[in-house]
């Protein structure tokens, strides 16, 4: 035979076509197209000596170790066995075309000339995936275990989530040791859920969402993990961790229900032993923005500006004090206070408290004194003192007898005009208490 190798298309004719083919001819053409393709053959012209059973002249088409037909006669005639269907498709990438002629082409003593045949062939992509049930694939053992994807001239296999394609590129093995979920919500389940999960698994499903989001886990029904009546989860275990800290270890048929993790990083670990046929588990995880605890005033003088019903990540609150009180954090006075709700649901600084303003001890008045009008020694907001000069030797510069000062909200003693400067006691001149008096006249 004369092979025609690896052409994607071509023409096959009888010898000397379109002139009459020779007698006593016998050859086989092997049509080979690249692997992954089938051979499609179409007869455009067919004019061979007709005979019963195509005993004299014939064209035989073979593929896939099978004869697809033995043909003779003319396409438009019912004599012989013309290839009426016209198209022949192989399953493999090879097709054979055998052309046989006998010693003559005579009818009633008259030589008749037949033109032979003209056929075109072309490579047609083979759908290996649909053909996987075929004997060829079965025999070769190359069958996609999970999913098959046909491509032009080839195919490839893949595995369902949780499985990994093996080196043979056809078989799949459970692989769930580092599954990562970053969407804001989604589903996670044991392999094959709700069918029995595979054995000998070490699965780690990590959920990582943006800072400031908290993950909620909702276990769906059915929930079924191998358990033991006396020992806690001896066979298979489902463990939940948040930020590396264990939340719980679960098995049996009682679902954990809903777990609010208050974390943006959750790891679900699932270990199975070599046996079991429980149906597994499925989690619907959702996220919500992290919320902070509702701020509470530490005292009645604290004002939380524009108090919200709820504070969530990146919200902030501003705290001030009632007049006469000052923001205090520890022992430190603050000019202002802002706290931000953090991604872990805590406030970035604790609530301050409002301490009553203390003006400190009143400034000593040179050549004068002060006395408390309110409680003795009280130097806090709204306390009042009275400054007086040491009369009659000194008097106030403004001639007043005395001046009342009040501890202001600003933490300073101020007079009724809002002045911080304390009075000034000026010496009284020319007024001796014991002036010279001459009585003798």
């Amino acid at each position: 035979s004369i092979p025609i190798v690896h052409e994607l298309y071509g023409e096959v004719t009888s010898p000397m076509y379109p002139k009459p083919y020779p007698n006593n001819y016998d050859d086989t053409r092997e049509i080979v197209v690249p692997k992954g393709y089938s051979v499609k053959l179409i007869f455009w012209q067919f004019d061979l000596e007709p005979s019963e059973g195509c005993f004299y002249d014939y064209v035989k088409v073979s593929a896939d170790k099978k004869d697809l037909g033995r043909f003779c006669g003319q396409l438009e005639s019912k004599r012989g066995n013309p290839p009426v269907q016209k198209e022949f498709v192989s399953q493999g990438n090879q097709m054979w075309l055998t052309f046989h002629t006998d010693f003559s082409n005579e009818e009633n003593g008259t030589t008749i000339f037949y033109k032979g045949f003209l056929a075109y062939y072309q490579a047609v992509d083979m759908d290996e995936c649909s053909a996987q049930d075929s004997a060829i694939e079965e025999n070769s053992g190359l069958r996609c275990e999970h999913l098959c994807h046909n491509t032009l001239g080839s195919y490839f296999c893949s595995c369902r989530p949780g499985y990994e394609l093996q080196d043979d590129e056809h078989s799949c093995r459970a692989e769930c040791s580092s599954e990562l979920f970053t969407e804001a919500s989604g589903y996670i389940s044991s392999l094959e859920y709700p069918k029995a999960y595979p054995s000998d698994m070490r699965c780690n499903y990590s959920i990582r969402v943006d800072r400031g989001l908290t993950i909620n886990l909702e276990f769906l029904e059915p929930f079924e993990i191998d358990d033991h009546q006396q020992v806690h989860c001896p066979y298979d275990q489902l463990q939940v961790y948040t930020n590396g800290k264990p939340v719980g270890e679960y098995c049996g048929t009682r679902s954990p229900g809903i777990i609010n993790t208050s974390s943006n990083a959750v790891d679900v670990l699932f270990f199975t032993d070599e046996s079991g046929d429980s149906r597994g588990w499925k989690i619907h995880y959702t996220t919500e923005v992290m919320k902070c605890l509702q701020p509470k005033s530490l005292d009645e003088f604290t004002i939380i500006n524009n108090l919200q019903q709820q504070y969530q990540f990146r919200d902030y609150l501003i705290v001030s004090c009632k007049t006469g009180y000052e923001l205090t954090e520890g022992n430190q006075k603050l000019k202002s206070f802002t706290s931000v709700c953090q991604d872990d649901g805590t406030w970035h600084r604790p609530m301050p408290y409002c301490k009553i303003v203390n003006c400190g001890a009143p400034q000593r008045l040179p050549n004068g004194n002060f006395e408390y009008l309110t409680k003795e020694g009280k130097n806090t907001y709204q306390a009042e003192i009275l400054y007086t000069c040491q009369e009659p030797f000194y008097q106030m510069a403004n001639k007043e007898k005395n001046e009342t000062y009040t501890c202001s909200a600003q933490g300073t003693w101020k007079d009724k005009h809002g002045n911080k400067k304390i009075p000034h006691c000026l010496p009284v001149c020319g007024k001796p208490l014991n002036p010279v008096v001459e009585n003798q006249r």
Partner: protein
Amino acid sequence: IIAGKNARLGNFPWQAFTNIYGRGGGALLGDRWILTAAHTIYPKDTPSVQNTSIDVFLGHTNLEEIMKMGVLPIRSVFVHPDYDPNDLNNFDNDIALLELENSVPLGLNLLPICLPDSETFYEKGLMGYVSGFGTEDQIIHDDLKFVSLPMVARENCRRWLSEKKSEQVFSDNMFCAGDKTTKKDACQGDSGGVFAVKDETGNRWVAAGIVSWGIGCGKGYGFYTKVLKYTDWIKGIIEKES
């Protein structure tokens, strides 16, 4: 003080005792200033000695007691710029201010005197009081004495000096006080003390003059620096330094 009387505590609470080139007087202004005569600091007849100590005492009528109360440190000295210590016959501008280092606590025996603000304190015949620790008939006393003297008309002062054939200058910045018929007068050691006049309307005592000079003691009139002429100078310094 000639022909005076002993002062009682509190009679002249502004009275200062100074010891510079000798005994002198002064008067407390406010609670940090001493008004005195320039010639107690730069005497006319004594070559000035640099860094002469200026000791000032306040608060009593007895020298021993007043000194027990402690000397008052001086921060600065302001002598009138027009005072000429070299002109023996001219006591014009005989006025000075001493600034105390610290304010003094006013009390019964320590009170300032007021400055004059009117010519009415210089009317002839107006009685004033002069006090001091100066000599009396060549006897020096340890107790503060005072004498009351009338203000004399300027013409009479001038005529008296003429009669005495005195070459001393009697400027507009001076006045004279005394009574030719009595010996009452100030004397050496009273310089710098003030001629105090009672302001009856204001019920206060005013430093109308500063004991400055005289021709002998107790023999006519005494001459005083007219403080009214210097109130701007005084206030200017005090305000600037406060």
